[in-house]
């Protein structure tokens, strides 16, 4: 009953100043819309750039690093124990590149509940020849099914079917710039030589474009079996095990654990790509700062308009107080006005922001570096909309609070006797 009359008065005052009200609300609308759009756009971009790395990078990569034996013979000699050892020209042993007892490692990884999946890989340096042209390159032997499932392999194969590399014997997928350089296309045969001198003709079944041009110029993918045959190795020859976890944040701990368990080198994604994390968070921070600034500016607009309204409505405030409305009633009326402007502006802003995001989402954005992206990336994360809503309402409440308090303190005697 009491609240209803206050709402009634607030609505009437709002309607009497409809133009000013709309201007104030449009300020909030603009702030909220820009906030939502900016964050959506910025984070869409962030997600995409992060995706470039995280989609293709193992959370934990197990491999055998070629390094000198940390226990040199002199350290084992009993008569030199306790002395300081100077050793010059330490050389790494020509150890095996494959992971030792890979079957056991795979068994343990498969049993681990934190692991989403793993993709075995063989890395081998090769020389690709096509007629007189010779180019050095990297050959990756992959399990296509695992790559498709875990690392979005299909997103980057721009021509041909990625599964063909598994089905067609002696087939290869070449990096697109590499294929262009060799002047070959799908169905052509290229000759691939290993470092050991073996030469194999492989049929091109697809073209690959990762977005990193340097990589694409040297890259070829083949099935595990093809590369094992190329290198003259048996089926247990695996040089890398790319593990994907359920929770990316567990990667450093898992890496340390696997390293000690299997005596392999284990590298986690955070160590390998530390700079990406930093870039994303700084970009987010900037967009939050800009968005919040816009909302605060809108808040000043509301503050001004309410202040003006209070000066105009001094008489009304005085008579309301004379006829029995208390200071807190008057304050509620002006806070209601402020919050109404805030909510109306906010709802408008959320809708406008959504439309604007959708508009940006449909703008064509094509770049050779990103074959799967055709329009600007935009994130529609509801969290941004919730933050914008909460912050706009808090801002308008704060902007309304000071003028409302001023109104509540108007002394009716001063106004009425002043006439």
């Amino acid at each position, binding site marked *: *009953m*009491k609240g*209803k*009359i206050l709402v*009634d*008065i607030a609505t*009437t*005052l709002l*309607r*009497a100043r409809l133009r000013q009200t709309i201007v104030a609300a449009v300020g909030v609308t603009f702030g909220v819309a820009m906030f939502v759009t900016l964050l959506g756009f910025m984070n869409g971009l962030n997600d995409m750039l992060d995706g470039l790395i995280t989609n293709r990078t193992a959370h934990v990569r197990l491999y055998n690093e070629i390094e000198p034996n940390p226990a040199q013979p002199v350290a084992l000699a009993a008569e030199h124990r306790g002395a300081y050892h100077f050793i010059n020209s330490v050389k790494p042993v020509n150890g095996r590149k494959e992971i030792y007892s890979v079957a056991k490692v795979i068994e343990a990884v498969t049993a681990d509940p934190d692991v989403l999946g793993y993709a075995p890989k063989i890395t081998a340096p090769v020389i690709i020849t096509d007629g007189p042209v010779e180019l050095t390159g990297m050959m990756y032997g992959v399990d296509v099914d695992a790559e498709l499932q875990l690392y979005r392999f299909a997103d980057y194969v721009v021509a041909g079917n990625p599964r063909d590399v598994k089905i067609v014997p002696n087939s290869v997928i070449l990096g697109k710039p590499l294929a262009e350089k060799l002047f070959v296309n799908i169905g052509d045969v290229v000759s691939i030589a290993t470092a050991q001198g073996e030469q194999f003709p492989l049929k091109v079944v697809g073209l690959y474009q990762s977005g990193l041009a340097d990589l694409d110029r040297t890259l070829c993918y083949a099935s595990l079996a093809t590369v094992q045959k190329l290198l003259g190795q048996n089926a247990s020859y695996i040089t890398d095990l790319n593990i994907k976890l359920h929770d990316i944040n567990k990667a450093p701990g898992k890496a340390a654990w696997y390293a000690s368990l299997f005596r392999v080198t284990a590298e986690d994604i955070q160590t390998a790509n530390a700079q990406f994390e930093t870039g994303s968070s700084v970009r987010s921070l900037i967009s939050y700062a800009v968005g919040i600034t816009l909302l605060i500016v809108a808040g000043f607009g509301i503050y001004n308009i309410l202040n003006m309204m209070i000066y105009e409505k001094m*008489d*009304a405030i*005085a*008579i*309301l*107080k*004379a*006829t*029995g*409305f*208390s*200071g*807190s*009633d008057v304050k509620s009326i002006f806070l209601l006005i402020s919050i109404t402007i805030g909510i109306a502006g906010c709802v408008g802003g959320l809708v406008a922001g959504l439309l604007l995001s959708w508009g940006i989402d449909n703008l064509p954005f094509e770049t050779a570096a990103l074959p799967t992206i055709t329009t600007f990336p935009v994130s529609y994360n509801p969290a941004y909309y919730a933050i914008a809503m909460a912050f706009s309402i808090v801002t308008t409440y704060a902007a309304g609070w000071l003028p409302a308090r001023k109104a509540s303190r108007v*002394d*009716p*005697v001063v106004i*009425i*006797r002043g*006439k």
Partner: protein
Amino acid sequence: MSIPVLQANNISKQFHDPVTIDVLKGVSFTINRGEFVSLVGRSGCGKSTLLYVLSTMDTDYSGDVVIDGRSMRGLSEVQLAAVRNKKIGFVFQFHYLLNDFSVLKNVMLPGLKLGEYSDREVRERAMYKLDILGMADKAAKRASQLSGGEKQRVAIARALINDPLIIMGDEPTGNLDKRNADAVFEIFSGLMRDFQQTLLIVTHDQDFARRSGRIIEMGEGQVVV
């Protein structure tokens, strides 16, 4: 049948700007139910100041104001607002109608604030009060569309909406021509006659004062007669 409605007990007040002046020096009187009192005096004698102290809007005074047997000393701002809402009706020199509201809504507002009646009852009561003042046909108009005399009648209707114990007026005829001033006086005396309405009116108008039931004359911050 002398039931005290409003008592002023030794009220004193000082203004401090720029020098300390005693505006009211120990004013005491009692107004009984059904009295029509005019408060008169020269300009600057403190009669308006006294009215605003009695109205509970001005709380910076010494002494005591007793309305309907209850002391106004030490009541909170919210409690004082409730007293004004329920027990006092105001008519000022200026009408103070809210231009954004209809005439009817202007009259209804204090009634809606009181919250003792449903919206419909408040509406009916407001129509009844407007009818007493001959303004029922203007109920749907906006306050800004009325003439000066009509506005003052609506202001009186607003003062009546909660059936106040006392109506206080600060020069209610001060802005009106002779004809409208007479009409307002007739309304006031009619209210006293027909509804035993208590009235306390500050006025300059000697004619108005002479025709009311009782005159309290002030001079130099004190009651003279």
